[in-house]
């Protein structure tokens, strides 16, 4: 069978599974809380897959093999080691935020900020950071998939038409099934992502003639690929450190992932989920190194789209190419869905009115967000990983605000203001209004330093004071 036949066959199976997930979820959802948070009783397995699927996406599938090909093995330190640090933080942060949610209730992270600070503006600041940095991130995913689909089927649709189709499917699916449907789709995607990447990774090892020849071949092309900072000098200590901070803060400041910690059925389940996500991260990132290593040999100097179309599709057996294409589509769909839905949930947590009116407004807002995302996806560049990193970094600036809300009973409003100011400075740098490097130090690293110095001691002091007052 040809690649196209396999794509139709596997794509058909995927859409049937999606339809079943939407149908099952549609029957279940009764209240807006069930629609938005799946009743907050996710077990370890679903929790793992939905968290992993929201975290690993087209960015991992397409971006990481290309990152390894172009910049070498430092890409492992950039993502996998940072993810290891992230899961360790989940244990402490997850427990603390769940405790706070028990006291204040939960409608969304923005709503939680609003309640914790007793100041609605704090909630809107959180929402603004999510909107500013998640919209481009969602658009990146759609952009990546559309380019890939275009190179796989050059005669079928333009990238913009593919993007429109993806947005339409995404909207229909989330509007019918809500959060639980997204979790089911994530489960399908999480498993398929792992299996497909390993199938392709092992095919690359075979194509290279074995394990050792794969690495020998990569190092023969350019020895700089075997160490940091890599052939293009990207992986400097500053870059890796700033990236690690941004990635570690993902569960703290990216609402689609914070929400997944809160909706786990127990803290013990969330703990087990954190460990499982760590294992999953290692397992899912490693095969992208194998794909990238072979790519460095076979596609040295080739543009990204030619490398991806070759390495994931045309160099593989037709069944595997078909699986890769459908898997990539699934990866992009579930991540973008999770993010768009999270934006809707964030807005909902800030709205007032009857349950029905708020839900109507939320659904309308998700539609508007989807249209904005579509617009962005048509005009963005192809640097998937670096754009995604910008999104992580931008939202991570809000971390002191979230830590304050979680750790303190009466957090000072200054935490919210300082965090938002840092986020806006970083945003201004993305627009070219502020320099990205100050006296040889990256702006993001400098902002982290300023945030740590200006908010860290105050946070610790306030926490001690509250503890002493509580003991007294």
């Amino acid at each position, binding site marked *: 069978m040809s690649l196209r036949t396999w794509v139709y066959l596997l794509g058909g199976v995927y859409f049937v599974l999606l339809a079943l997930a939407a149908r099952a979820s549609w029957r279940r959802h009764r209240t807006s809380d069930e629609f938005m948070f799946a009743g907050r009783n996710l077990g370890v397995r679903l929790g793992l897959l939905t968290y992993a699927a929201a975290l690993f996406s087209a960015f991992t599938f397409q971006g990481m093999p290309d990152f390894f090909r172009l910049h070498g*093995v*430092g890409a*492992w*330190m950039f993502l*996998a*080691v940072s*993810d*290891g*640090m992230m*899961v*360790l933080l*989940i*244990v*402490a942060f997850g*427990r603390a935020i769940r405790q706070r949610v028990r006291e204040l209730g939960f409608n969304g992270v923005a709503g939680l900020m609003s309640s914790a600070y007793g100041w609605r503006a704090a909630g809107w600041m959180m929402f603004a950071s999510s909107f500013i940095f998640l919209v481009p991130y969602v658009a990146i995913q759609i952009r990546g998939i559309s380019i890939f689909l275009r190179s796989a089927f050059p005669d079928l649709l333009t990238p913009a038409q593919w993007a429109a189709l993806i947005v339409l499917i995404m909207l229909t699916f989330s509007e019918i099934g809500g959060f639980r449907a997204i979790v089911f789709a994530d489960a399908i995607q999480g498993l398929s992502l792992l299996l497909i990447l390993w199938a392709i990774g092992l095919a690359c090892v075979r194509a290279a003639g074995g*394990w*050792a*020849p*794969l*690495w*020998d071949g990569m*190092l023969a092309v350019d*020895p*700089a690929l*075997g*160490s*940091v*900072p890599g052939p293009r000098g990207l*992986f400097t*200590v500053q870059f*890796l*450190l700033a990236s*690690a901070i941004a990635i570690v803060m993902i569960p703290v400041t990216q609402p689609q992932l914070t929400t997944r910690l809160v909706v786990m059925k127990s*803290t*013990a389940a969330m*703990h*087990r989920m*954190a*460990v499982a996500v*760590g*294992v999953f*991260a*290692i397992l899912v990132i*490693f095969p992208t*190194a194998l794909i990238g290593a072979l790519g460095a040999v076979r596609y040295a100097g080739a543009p990204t789209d030619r490398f991806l179309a070759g390495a994931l599709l045309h160099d593989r057996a037709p069944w595997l190419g078909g699986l890769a294409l459908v898997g990539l589509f699934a990866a992009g769909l579930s991540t973008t869905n999770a993010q768009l839905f999270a934006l809707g949930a964030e807005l909902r947590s800030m709205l007032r009115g009857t349950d029905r009116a708020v839900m109507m407004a939320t659904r309308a807002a998700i539609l508007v967000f989807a249209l904005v995302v579509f617009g962005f996806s048509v005009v963005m560049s192809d640097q998937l990983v670096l754009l995604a990193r910008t999104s992580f970094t931008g939202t991570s600036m809000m971390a002191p605000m979230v830590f304050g809300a979680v750790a303190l009973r009466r957090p000072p409003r200054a935490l919210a203001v300082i965090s938002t100011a840092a986020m806006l400075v970083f945003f201004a740098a993305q627009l070219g209004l502020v320099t990205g490097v100050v006296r040889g130090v990256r702006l993001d690293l400098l902002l982290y330093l300023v945030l740590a110095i200006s908010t860290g001691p105050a946070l610790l002091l306030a926490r001690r004071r509250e503890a002493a007052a509580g003991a007294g």
Partner: protein
Amino acid sequence: MDNRRDRQRWRRRAVWVAGAVLAMATFTPLFIPSGRIHPRFIGMPYTLWAGIAVAMLFVGLTAAAARLDSEEESNREGGRR
């Protein structure tokens, strides 16, 4: 009872200190030596296999932190009863 609690607290602190030390060491030439690919392990360059070991250590520390956290939680619930 207090001894047990102290031991648990000490272990929890040890896990977090180990995590902090490992995180700091990650960004030193110990794990990311500039331009060095040796020693290689089953063909893989040093930074890659050392990075895999570091990632596994973090997952191990996560498992330990999660377990100690859950023990403390159940102790607290036991104390309440």
